[in-house]
């Protein structure tokens, strides 16, 4: 039973991280029907920024909690700036081009950012300090679930709630929903579409940066390539849940995290990815729009 619980919580951790990245994928897709392949790289840049800020602040002698909070905030800001810029440079000029052009542009951006970090930083793996303190009350359970993981669950839940609130109850959220439904019509009624799209990228990137800092501090290392696999997995999770749907992205991520964890735990990790993708194919055969997606054949 304890083993089951451990696998469940491990899967939850993985799923939460996937969710933080998948949210950005799904928001962007919902609004401009673009699969933003550079999103994984934004996550990686978030982790790198976090590391740099942590190194500097630790050197300056800041207190540990202040360091992690500041690092997360600066990483969010920095990644958001990247997300904003990437959209302005690589996607906005292609707004009216065929969708394939924007997709190719996204792949190019992803490769560019990877190699940029490789050149500007290093190709080596770098250690990432674990700054989240072990909570006293967690001590007896530390072998099952770590304090870092608890922080990951809570953060994901909070981010998820905040986003839902924003989409449902704020003006910007309303504008986003309007643009997602019909871009031309929203433009006609006076919605600043470019601004809405920029906001979407900023929010999605900031979310990914939180994921980057959290997972890096959980596993303790980063390099320029971590965004690729995490990005692909999060993309799969977004598709699994129904791309374009925010609760779908979170559900899809958790399902993917648990699938991987339980498959590894009870069967074998040799075929972990094979199984995860077979599962994806099966779901898409029976529910082509994903778990929570609405089928909109005209969008494909």
């Amino acid at each position: 039973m304890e083993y089951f619980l451990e696998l469940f919580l491990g899967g939850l951790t993985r799923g939460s991280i996937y969710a933080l990245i998948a949210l950005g994928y799904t928001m962007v897709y919902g609004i401009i029907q673009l699969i933003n392949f550079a999103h994984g790289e934004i996550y990686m840049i978030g982790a790198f920024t976090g590391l740099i800020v942590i190194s500097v602040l630790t050197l300056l002698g800041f207190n540990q909690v202040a360091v992690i909070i500041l690092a997360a905030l600066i990483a969010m800001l920095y990644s958001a700036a990247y997300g904003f810029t990437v959209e302005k440079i690589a996607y906005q000029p292609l707004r009216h081009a065929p969708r394939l052009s924007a997709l190719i542009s996204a792949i190019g951006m992803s490769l560019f950012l990877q190699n940029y970090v490789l050149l500007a930083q290093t190709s080596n793996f770098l250690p990432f300090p674990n700054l989240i303190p072990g909570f006293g009350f967690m001590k007896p359970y530390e072998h099952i679930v770590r304090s870092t993981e608890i922080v990951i669950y809570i953060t994901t839940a909070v981010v998820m709630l905040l986003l839902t609130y924003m989409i449902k109850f704020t003006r910007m959220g309303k504008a986003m929903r309007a643009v997602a439904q019909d871009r031309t019509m929203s433009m006609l009624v006076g919605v600043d579409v470019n601004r809405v799209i920029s906001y979407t990228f900023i929010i999605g990137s900031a979310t990914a940066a939180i994921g980057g800092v959290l997972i890096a501090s959980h596993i303790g290392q980063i390099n320029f390539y971590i965004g690729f696999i995490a990005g692909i997995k999060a993309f799969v999770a977004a598709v699994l849940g129904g791309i374009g749907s925010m609760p779908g992205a979170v559900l899809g991520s958790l399902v993917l995290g648990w699938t991987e964890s339980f498959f590894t735990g009870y069967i074998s990790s040799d075929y972990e990815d094979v199984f995860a993708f077979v599962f994806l194919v099966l779901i898409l055969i029976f529910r082509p729009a994903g778990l929570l997606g609405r089928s909109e054949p005209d969008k494909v």
Partner: protein
Amino acid sequence: MRKIRRSRYFALALIVALAALALASCGEQKTTETAKPSEAPAEKALEPIKLGVAGAHSGDLASYGIPSVRAAELVVKHRNAVNGIGGRKIELLVEDDACKPEVATNTATKLVTDKAQVVMGHICSGATKAALGIYKDSKIITISPSATNPELTQSGDYPNFYRTIASDDAQARLEVDFALNHLKLTKIAVLHDKGDYGKGLAEFAKGFLEADSRAEVVLYEGITPGAVDYSAVVQKIKQSGAQAVIFGGYHPEASKLVTQMRNKAMDTVFISDDGVKDDTFIKVAGEFAEGVYATGPVDTSTNPMAIEATEAHKKDYGEEPGAFFLNAYSATLALLNAIEKCGSTEYEALSKALKSEWVATPLGIIKFDDRGDAIGVGFAVYQVQDGKYVAVQM
């Protein structure tokens, strides 16, 4: 039609021309070889010892073979300068096999015909295997400086074969022996990164563990390199009750695994390979790296004989020695030492001497085990202590 016939004639002419060239180059080689003993006509009374040196001396892989020829030349030069072995000079018979098994059989036949008494070679495992049968039939002891295929010694098919390089499975063997004999652990999880190197090692380790009645392989798994985390695998290791993990792979995965294991308050012993014996591993895993074991090549950089051999090479050939130079140097030394100890090149006596007499070489002090693998060559166990890999005394 006519055109085709003409081109056929042309091809024939080309083959003849090439064959003539090849003969010419063989002829040349022979003259240089026969030139050597004539330098010292005074000792003509004593028969020279003929040492065959075979390997890739031309073609793509010549860079693996040439250093062995030079090593043999250097050792023989030094030896002949002090009157050879018991007054008998040593004569080199250098033959090329281009690393091709089909050529290697001819090379071997030629060495046998030329009455080579011992052979240092061949270089590539495939060519070595092809040639070994011929030497075996003629009862000629053969030492390879570089053929690493485990089968060559382990199959028992070639009792005339020895080598001064660790076989491909030596690391796995060392890891397993270390866990079972030194650390006295029996329940072992074997993990790998699904790559050629890591999985190959893990398969050997699993095989050795299963062959040992004390050991129990409680888990055998491949992990996905680059995965977001390994918490499920780590839980599985814990669940399996493993006392030690033997991991085949490289340091990024190893540091992630170790970090997550230690974070889950597991003190399972972690043993890995020279893909992990890298300072990056210590840097990334930080405090969690402490106590991790990794096998790696025995350090020869401080061995005075290795330094001397390298200097001699630089002096005579004007460049740094290439791959397997020290292995070939050691192989030649070991052969000559055995011949000196038993006073003949007779097969039985020589085998006994190789297996019983320790000899100081640039690779350390070595002798050969019953299968023909050098003891003291190859890998050592290192442990991370205070942020550094330190050799473990066994």
